């Protein structure tokens, strides 16, 4: 199999907006996503992850480059100003591109 080049969009955000981020991802038509519990530090201070109000999630989703960029922009627009949130992109190769909508 030749690997298909796609984008990985990774989002780290405070847990309060997890559900709404996921709704955006689903609305954008991504084929799936993977979430892990996270803690950390950034502009908005320390998030120690030891109670509801300071835990974060790290969500990653593989999709085509266009979707990745547009979702990233939208998330930053919606919640960037008021919530702890960062997003980044990087290139990945997947083996069964069809699964990720690469050959749609």
């Amino acid at each position, binding site marked *: 199999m030749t690997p298909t080049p796609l984008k990985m969009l990774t989002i780290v955000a*405070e847990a*309060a907006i997890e559900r*709404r981020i996921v709704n955006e991802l689903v609305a954008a038509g991504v084929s799936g996503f993977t979430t892990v519990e996270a803690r950390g530090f950034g502009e908005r*201070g320390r998030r*120690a*992850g*030891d*109670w*509801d*109000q300071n*835990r974060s999630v790290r969500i990653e989703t593989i999709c085509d480059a266009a979707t990745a960029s547009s979702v990233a922009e939208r998330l930053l627009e919606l*919640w960037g*100003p*008021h*919530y702890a949130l960062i997003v980044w992109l990087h290139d990945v190769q997947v083996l069964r591109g069809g699964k990720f909508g690469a050959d749609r």
Partner: protein
Amino acid sequence: MENLLDPAVLCFVLGLAAGLARSDLSLPRALYETLSVYLLLAIGLKGGVELARSAPGEILLPLLGALALGVSVPLVAYFVLRKIGRMKRPDSAAIAAHYGSVSAVTFAIVLEYLRQAGTPFEDYSAVLLVVLEIPAIGVGILLAKRGAAGPAAGWRSIARELFLGKSVFLLLGGLMIGVLARPETIGTVKPLFFDLFKGALALFLLEMGLVASRRLAEVRTVGPFLLGFGILMPILSAAMGIAVSLGVGLSPGGTTVLATLAASASYIAAPAAMRIAVPEANPALYLTASLGITFPFNVILGIPLYDWASRLAHQIGG
């Protein structure tokens, strides 16, 4: 000072000390979550069992009194924050919501305090707790949005956040189970939900001490006004609570309960709702005030003070 010699309060102080000394003591978040589910359910259950014993008629007036407090306390708080503190509208509204709403753990502590002292209080107290959770949050959102189109996330999604949030859901669920379950069968869960309650509260307070200490460490960054507010506002709210209690005819014990509820600031339901409904409010402000200042103050000094004042008010009034 006697309150300070209670093991649960001492556990809170130990947690505070660990946090301030930057000890590497930490409790897993799973324990925090488990204990908070347990405490909310147990408070509801106990409250439900007691509620089943009380006559429906006697609840009505105190309930209305609690509702009045739930609306007026956040309005007063908002006024103080805006006019005296000169804080921004969203921040003022969000903080006001916290102080109008209540803390279930503070409620549990005042009940233990009264039981320890042998002071009786009304059987339906847990209903007052539940009733006080939500109105102030609604008031806070309205204050934040005055003139604006509506809350950021839409009223529907906020209502769901509130009524289906774990805090109200578990308290109400517990209450209903306590009322519905036959007394014989409640006995079978008594060892977990009743006998262990005080110990679990102590363990939770250890963890709360750690969390509060991190907030306390941020007090410098929020400024002296909020520090003063975090101590004086609960005293003012307690006074309002005492006045209302006398008005609706609560016993001295019940007066202490309602005063403490009025004085307590929410740290489960309100932060969750405010974060979504008023995102432009800075969480560092309301969390530090509620959890870093008011919660420790109430646990250590406030409750004995409100109890003393309640008894005094009854002596003078009676």
